[in-house]
């Protein structure tokens, strides 16, 4: 009896120890055996856990694992998803502890691919990609604008260190500026005639039947200029006053006071902080008069009570969902929001949202603040999709066999069949797999139907593509894939179509491309990190206060000069020079 108890205790101890070992390990390193190759994959994003608990349950992943072989091997993925909000930290921690996965998504990486290569963490794929990925290379050949983004420059030599995904066209934006059209219609008046607007739903049962005769000061039915925005803000004030909304506001800028992607600031002829100007040279936008004009505008809005007084406190909000709860409470006039806020979607039948109709609008053009150089400039630097998608690196934890198998898989995702599969399971594929997730969601007809319109084959999704379940049903978190966006009917309603057309109206041509980023050598990348660590801290500490009217006085020339002098102390110009060097290198 005593012996049995001792054995039992030993067994328990061993199991506990093994449990500890397993829990301490991050990405395991079982390369697989026999006919299966195991791949561990780190992604910064997973899906909503209410849809499925782990990404291994993604229907497309399961379908690929069950039905395809690559390099005569079956693939088996194990996914490690970063905790939300700590993606970059998680990436750093995995690298720091050596517990990184076979494949690491680089979209939230705290190191560049050349840095990882110099640290001997990742594979050099320069020869392996052309040898194993004919579809990928064919895509790049057909799309020379994408080619530069796959290369990194190490010691002056072009190398493929990262596998980047692409789209076959420009994907419509999922976010942008949105405003309460119903408030304008209800509380505003025609700026030319002073007559009240007519508005309403022509069919009470059809949410898409909203009609109005709203005209903005620019003479069109869209707000295009800063003056249009200010006209709207006056109306929003009136709307909030008449509805008794005491804690509402017209607009809440991102908590930095500006956006590092350039949005809104771009309408003042600038970009923040680093961008190409009209001459194709790299500029630090913070040092320009455009930034001063932008700050003067926001300071004016703040003084007039149009801005959210607490804008700098929303530090955990992403830039396209600032103070989202208040937006959904119907207490905000204009915001940078997701497609899920346009149309009648925020109407919750309560006091402030009943009858709400939201339209998307373009980046506004400054026509009031600063001088001629800062006015009437078309926006060209903003957060917008290009054909480039996220990239992954293959770590040295992978054997050559694993690398080749993964490359073959990635190449398949650039074939016609793979591209369609990325868009979800077809009816036939669903019927063959009887996927539990699709069954639960009622996707028995598959994710899409191919229809013919105007002599073209159109992929028409069978689901609401703005729903979170959409991403869960396709292969949205694995790269590299070729995402199909051309000839796709996303099932958008008229408000969504109007919003995405507005958000995509101007083209982002001034952001520094992936190619430029990749051309920065390791030493320079470290310099950028060091300079920006201090410089960004300085900006984040000062810019919100400048908007609120404390700290540097943006209306006073001497104070502005002092601000520029302090900016110089942080050697921000060094970063400009490094990027310029990279641009020149890419153009060679």
């Amino acid at each position, binding site marked *: 009896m005593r012996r049995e108890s001792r054995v039992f205790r030993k067994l328990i101890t061993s199991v506990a120890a093994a449990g500890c070992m397993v829990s301490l390990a991050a990405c395991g390193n079982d390369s697989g055996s026999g006919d299966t190759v195991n791949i561990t994959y780190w992604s910064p994003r997973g899906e909503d856990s209410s849809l499925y608990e782990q990404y291994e349950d993604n229907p497309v992943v399961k379908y690929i694992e069950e039905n395809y072989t690559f390099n005569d091997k079956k693939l088996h993925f194990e996914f490690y998803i970063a905790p939300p909000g700590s993606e*970059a*930290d998680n990436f*750093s921690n995995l*690298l*720091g502890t*050596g517990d990184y996965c076979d494949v690491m998504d680089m979209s939230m990486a*705290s*190191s*560049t691919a050349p*840095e990882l290569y*110099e*640290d*001997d*963490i990742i594979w050099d794929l320069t020869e392996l990609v052309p040898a194993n990925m004919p579809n990928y290379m064919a895509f790049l050949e057909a799309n020379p604008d994408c080619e530069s983004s796959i290369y990194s420059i190490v010691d002056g030599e072009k190398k493929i260190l990262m596998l980047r995904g692409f789209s076959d066209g420009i994907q419509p934006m999922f976010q942008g500026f949105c405003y309460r059209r119903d408030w304008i219609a209800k509380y505003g008046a025609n700026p030319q005639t002073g007559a009240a607007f007519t508005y309403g739903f022509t069919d009470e049962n059809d949410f898409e039947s909203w009609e109005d005769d709203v005209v903005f000061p620019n003479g069109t039915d869209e707000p295009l200029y800063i003056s249009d925005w200010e006209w709207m803000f006056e109306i929003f004030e009136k709307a909030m006053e008449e509805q008794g909304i005491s804690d509402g506001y017209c607009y809440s800028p991102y*908590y*930095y006071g500006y956006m590092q992607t350039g949005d809104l600031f771009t309408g003042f002829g600038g970009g923040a902080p680093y961008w190409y100007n009209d001459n194709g040279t790299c500029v630090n936008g913070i040092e320009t008069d455009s930034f001063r004009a932008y700050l003067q505008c926001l300071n004016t809005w703040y003084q007039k009570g149009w801005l959210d007084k*607490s804008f*700098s*406190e929303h*530090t955990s909000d992403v830039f396209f969902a600032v103070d989202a709860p208040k937006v959904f409470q119907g207490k905000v006039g204009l915001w940078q929001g997701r497609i899920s806020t346009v149309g009648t979607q925020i109407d919750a039948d309560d006091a402030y949202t009943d009858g709400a109709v939201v339209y998307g609008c373009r980046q506004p053009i400054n026509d009031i603040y600063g001088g001629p150089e800062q006015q009437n400039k078309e926006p060209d630097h903003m957060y917008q999709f290009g054909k480039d998608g996220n990239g992954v690196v293959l770590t040295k934890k992978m054997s050559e066999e694993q690398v080749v198998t993964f490359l073959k898989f990635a190449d398949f995702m650039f074939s016609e069949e793979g591209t369609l599969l990325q868009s979800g399971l077809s009816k036939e594929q669903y019927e063959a797999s009887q996927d539990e997730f699709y069954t639960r969601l009622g996707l028995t007809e598959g994710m899409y139907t191919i229809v013919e319109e105007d002599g073209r084959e159109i992929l028409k999704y069978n689901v609401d593509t703005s729903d979170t379940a959409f991403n869960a049903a396709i292969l949205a978190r694995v790269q590299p894939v070729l995402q199909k966006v051309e000839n796709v009917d996303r099932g958008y309603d008229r408000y969504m179509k109007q919003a995405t057309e507005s958000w995509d109206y101007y083209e982002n041509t001034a952001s520094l491309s992936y190619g430029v980023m990749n051309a920065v050598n390791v030493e320079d*990348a*470290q310099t*950028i*990190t*060091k300079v*920006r*660590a*201090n410089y*960004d*801290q*300085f900006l*984040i*500490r000062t810019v*919100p*206060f400048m908007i609120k009217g404390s700290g540097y006085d943006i209306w006073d020339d001497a104070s502005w000069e002092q601000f520029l002098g302090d900016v110089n102390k*942080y050697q921000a110009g060094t970063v400009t020079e490094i990027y310029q060097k990279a641009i020149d290198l890419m153009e060679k």
Partner: protein
Amino acid sequence: MGIKRNKPGISTKALKPDKLSWKEDFRKNGILYLLFLPVLVWEILFHYLPLPGILMAFQDFSISKGLFGSKWVGFEHFVELFTGSGFPLAFRNTVAMAILSLTIGFSASIIFALILTTFPHKRFRRLAQSASYLPNFVSAVVMCSLATEFLSEKGAITMFLSLFGADKQNWLANPDIPVFWLIYTFIGIWQGMGWGSIVYVASISNISGELHEAAAIDGANRFQRIWHVTLPGILPLIVMMWTMNVGIVLKLVGGNILLLYMPQTYDVADVLSTYTYRMSFGGSANYGLSTASGLFQSVLGLILLVTSNKLSKRAAGYSLF
């Protein structure tokens, strides 16, 4: 580690037990050594084995090249740390919050223990004791979320303060000195006061009741008994706890701050640990810089520990070593 009584004229030699050989000692106190074993292993694993990692403070550390293959950069990381734009303010805030923790924060546990032990109703005393321990078991994230809610523009504490004429504002976003420092200190008290009082309550219960009885017969009121009997009775413990706290306080300041601060309050809320965290891991991970900062704080903590130990030896006649 015991407390040394160092009063001139009193010899402690006669009180010392006969010295045993280590074998005899081990035979006699084997169980105690066994109990100590996990602590010893833990100390070695987590406090001594990582010591070579200090080298990273002087290296351009690279994971692949390892500790002994990375490039030596001397004091470069220290220069980067001390010349960083936010360092002076972070250092000032660390010192300010450390002083508040060592004064208001430290004395709160003692005062609470004194109140508890002098309170006559046993049942209420136990209830108060248990309730005061609870925050110690609640996650810091939850505690800070609650504090954020209470101190928001429409929070309970803000509403309460507004009754006395204070502005209705988000107190955590207030960049004025010493608002954030006090908030941080009081959250620390809320979290740790009950738990920290346990050791004092235990020590107070060990004070002989006869001393209290004698003082009462001599006409001492409750406050006088606390002042002349209880406090001197726990003074060695207070000195030990204070000295140990001084040594680690710089490293302790920071835990909750990461959950409470925002760019708007960096000037008053940023401390060495949060500043280092942002500088080291804001972009590419800079292990050298974070190690340099950790080493700097450790050295400073050691100096403070030795100094406070000497000061307490001189002032109160007690010292830790």
